């Protein structure tokens, strides 16, 4: 029999008992819907997590620290590394070398100093943090009030909303565009006779510092007039910061130009090394290149960290989650399979005579089998279609529900449920395959019917 005729006869037969076949199809669709809803939830949660992480600007960033610092977080990693004394420090030459690596677009030091902002005669203390220009892409700036820095050494400052409220309780937004005084500690080279001692020190330690202040330096209080250009709600790169929370943000270039004294300056002075950094933030052209850059920096002797490391376990988690969601979703479909078998077995019993007639006028066993198979497949197809639609509706409801809940908790609404196109296709295909498998038994039963027996009785 030609496939057109098969399909035509199958659909015609299905329409013969609309209620029963309709109910079975709805049963399949409920199964498919639960599977779709579960799997889409998995996809949605995964995308939500990935989006959160991507928005944090961490996926294209490698954090570089010296193996001398931050020891003890990862004992295995420590054990593999050379002894701390031999590990290179993160200094200006290291920064230059890293910036020459392929696919690296920006290398900025992690800078954080103590400072004060003077506003209307009052001084307000806060940590000053340097931001590279690429920070503009960070999700923290989604809520930016005002503008971003106009350049990498502009005398401009962005402040945290909390801090702005401290400065001006009633109308923090009015600070945007105002000039304020920034008070900070400048790192100054020692005077000439101190420098001669520095030379001696170089002999002591074997270090040949090329800037005169590797032996020591002065910290001198300075002030600078800066303009508040923007206010943000959250600190960028919040999770990755090593020291306490920053409230005042300057362009990294400005901080370097003003030669602000760093925590690390004291340490490098004790060690008799040149000025070095707590950490470098290396921006990579493309998240897919992060691993390569990370390896290259690792070979230079530094410790690296990127979100790639964190997402490895995240991806594993989602694979397991998808598996479990899939299993739970499939349960309903398994029940639907039984419904298909039941419906078709009933149909075989009911249509015994019709099957006998068809055989008598020339249908082969194969034709009869294919006909029941097609009926099962058609129920699977329609059930799948309806199921995807139903699953889509359930998902929308979940999204609206969670959105409502999130909004009540002052959080931005985000879809936790996403139906990717491949899942639509896969769900319908799966529904058809499951239905065909369910049709195996009834179809072969129908094919085996003896026409003489079925035609014998009225």
């Amino acid at each position, binding site marked *: 029999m030609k496939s057109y005729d098969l399909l035509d006869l199958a659909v015609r037969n299905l329409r013969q008992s609309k209620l029963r076949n309709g109910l079975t199809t709805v049963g399949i669709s409920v199964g498919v819907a639960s599977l779709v809803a579960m799997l889409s939830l998995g996809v949605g949660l995964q995308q939500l997590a990935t989006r959160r992480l991507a928005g944090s600007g961490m996926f294209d960033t490698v954090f570089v620290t010296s193996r001398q610092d931050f020891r003890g977080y990862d004992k295995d990693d420590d054990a593999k590394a050379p002894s701390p004394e031999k590990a290179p420090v993160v200094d200006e030459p290291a920064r230059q070398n890293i910036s020459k690596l392929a696919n690296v677009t920006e290398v900025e030091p992690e800078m954080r100093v103590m400072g004060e902002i003077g506003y209307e005669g009052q001084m307000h203390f806060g940590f000053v943090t340097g931001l590279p220009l690429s920070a503009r892409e960070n999700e923290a700036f989604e809520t930016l009030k005002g503008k971003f820095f106009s350049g990498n050494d502009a005398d401009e400052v962005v402040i945290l909303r909390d801090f702005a409220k401290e400065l001006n309780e009633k109308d923090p937004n009015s600070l945007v565009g105002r000039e304020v005084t920034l008070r900070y500690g400048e790192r100054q080279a020692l005077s000439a006779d101190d420098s001669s001692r520095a030379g001696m020190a170089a002999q002591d330690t074997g270090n040949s510092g090329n800037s005169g202040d590797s032996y020591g330096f002065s910290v001198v209080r300075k002030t600078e007039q800066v303009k508040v250009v923007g206010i943000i709600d959250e600190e960028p790169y919040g999770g990755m910061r090593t020291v306490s929370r920053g409230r005042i943000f300057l362009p990294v270039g400005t901080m370097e130009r003003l030669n602000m004294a760093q925590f690390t300056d004291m340490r490098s002075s004790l060690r008799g090394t040149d000025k070095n950094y707590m950490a470098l933030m290396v921006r990579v052209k493309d998240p897919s290149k992060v691993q390569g850059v990370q390896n290259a920096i690792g070979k230079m002797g530094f410790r690296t960290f990127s979100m790639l490391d964190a997402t490895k376990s995240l991806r594993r988690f989602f694979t397991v989650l998808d598996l479990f969601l899939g299993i739970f979703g499939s349960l309903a479909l398994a029940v639907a399979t039984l419904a298909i078998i039941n419906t078709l077995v009933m149909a075989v019993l009911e249509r015994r005579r019709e099957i*006998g007639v068809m055989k008598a006028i*020339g249908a082969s066993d194969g034709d009869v089998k294919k006909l029941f198979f097609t009926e099962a497949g058609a129920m699977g197809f329609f059930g799948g279609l309806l199921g995807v639609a139903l699953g889509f509706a359930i998902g929308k409801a979940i999204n609206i529900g969670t959105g409502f809940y999130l909004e009540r908790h002052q959080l931005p609404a985000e879809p936790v449920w996403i139906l990717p196109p491949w899942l639509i296709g896969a769900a319908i295909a799966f529904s058809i395959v499951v239905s065909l498998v369910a049709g195996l038994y009834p179809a072969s039963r129908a094919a085996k019917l003896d026409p003489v027996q079925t035609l014998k009785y009225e």
Partner: protein
Amino acid sequence: MNSTARPRTRPAVRTENVCRHYQMGGNIIRAVDGISLEIEPGEFVALLGQSGSGKSTLLNLLAGLDRPTSGSVLVHGRDLAKMSSEELARYRRNDVGMVFQSFHLIPSMKVTENVELPMRFAEVDRTERAERVRESLERVGLAKRMDHRPSELSGGEQQRVSMARALANRPSILLADEPTGNLDSRTGEDILNLIRDVSLSLGMTVVMVTHERALAERFAQRLIFLADGKLQSQEVRA
């Protein structure tokens, strides 16, 4: 199988010592028990006998719906007993047409669709199917009832539809199992007239099972009497 004994035309149907035995409980039922007969092409043969004489079982064997326990059934020289079930289906589809006592039309299908059904199995082109449906229905005189359902037709009309269906694939043999059994005598006669006309105009071989001897004598060229699964006697009419 020795065909040298047949100098004249090859018979359309020939059975050789054909048996069909059933196992029922502990007993063996010999529904057909060693029947040998020959039917010439274009011949109209009636199988007569009491119920349980084995005439319907013999017809089912000729139709390829049932397989003999032993012996052979040769149709145009091909042994049905040796055919695969796929080959038998093809034989039923192309070489024989069947008419039943209770018509066996599919109630959910319109007249045209019932007639079209065997052509679906035979994979006849859709355009040709419409043509042949009309042709068959005209031949049985039902061209005006094409879009009705079987339940809307009288018994005689239903049997005509079933005739049209049997003719759809242009078979060479028509097998009729008590075609008049559910009809009044007037309508039954009409149907047998139709069968004879078709047989004559298309040169079809007809084997009809019946228990109405009078009708058989009027229409069939030869009467074959069965009893207890055995061939009892034959009677050739003019």
